[in-house]
């Protein structure tokens, strides 16, 4: 089963990398970009077919390692 965990910065946390990307997009002349926040995507292959179990495992993975809960939020999706 394919799954995706998306990790994003919490609102209010300064994101210097996002700001730099935002600046670069503006200098490239890409119109209409108001702001950029950078995050991470983890594509994960889960063993077995039990969706509830997979979701549980991925939540554990996100909270124990993939996201730093001090500054980041995460979202688990089973694809």
């Amino acid at each position: 089963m394919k799954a995706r965990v998306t990790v994003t910065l919490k609102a209010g946390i300064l994101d210097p990398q996002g700001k730099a990307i935002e600046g670069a997009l503006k200098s490239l002349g890409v119109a209409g970009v108001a702001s950029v926040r950078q995050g991470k995507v983890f594509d994960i292959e889960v063993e077995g077919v039990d969706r509830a179990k997979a979701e549980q495992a991925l939540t554990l993975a996100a909270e124990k390692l993939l996201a730093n809960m001090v500054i980041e939020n995460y979202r688990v999706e089973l694809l």
Partner: protein
Amino acid sequence: MKSAVVVFPGINRERDMARALKFVSGKEPAMVWHADSELPKGTDLVVLPGGFSYGDYLRCGAIAARAPIMEAVRTHAAKGGLVLAVCNGFQIACEAGLLPGVLMRNARLKFICKEVFLRIERSDTPFTRQYNAGAVIRVPVAHGEGNYVADADTIARIEDEGRVLFRYTAPDGKLDPAFNFNGATNAIAGILSEKRNVLGLMPHPENHVDPAVGPTDGRRLFESLVSTLEAA
């Protein structure tokens, strides 16, 4: 003083640290591999040194913080044992939950390697008892992620509890945004745990201990540890 320096893959400051510990205390520290699950018996100071553990993959310090040895380090700290966490070690200690907050990318996105000025906020700690509170020392930094961030409640709590031990300042000890080179919240360079037995700091006091290689402003931090442990 029986110290143990934890060695993670990708760490590169462990020898500087071991040399400083030996230079000041006269005793060779134990080098402890990250995959071990126990600290040497009788360890009274654990050091998490600087470097680039696991190539800074995922987040700086994130993977090292989950290494087998960290459970023993956590137990050591919970019992009131001293932990000194420098640079990548500070990032590891935050990721491991030994210290609050997190070290983010430097505000201007540059890796910064230079000497900076630190104001010592208090001298009544095991790490700074040989300094005077308010003194300004010069020590090197070398990091790309040293911008200390925590939520507003955490910042208020550590400030109220007097747990900010070092701040980036001008040479005269005044706060000045121009000298807060990495953009850290409240110019925080180093913080203590709630029980004041764990210190995390971004600068490298271990590099300024030997007059043969330059200034010795970092030396008193190690002398403080030695005198704390001798008094105990």
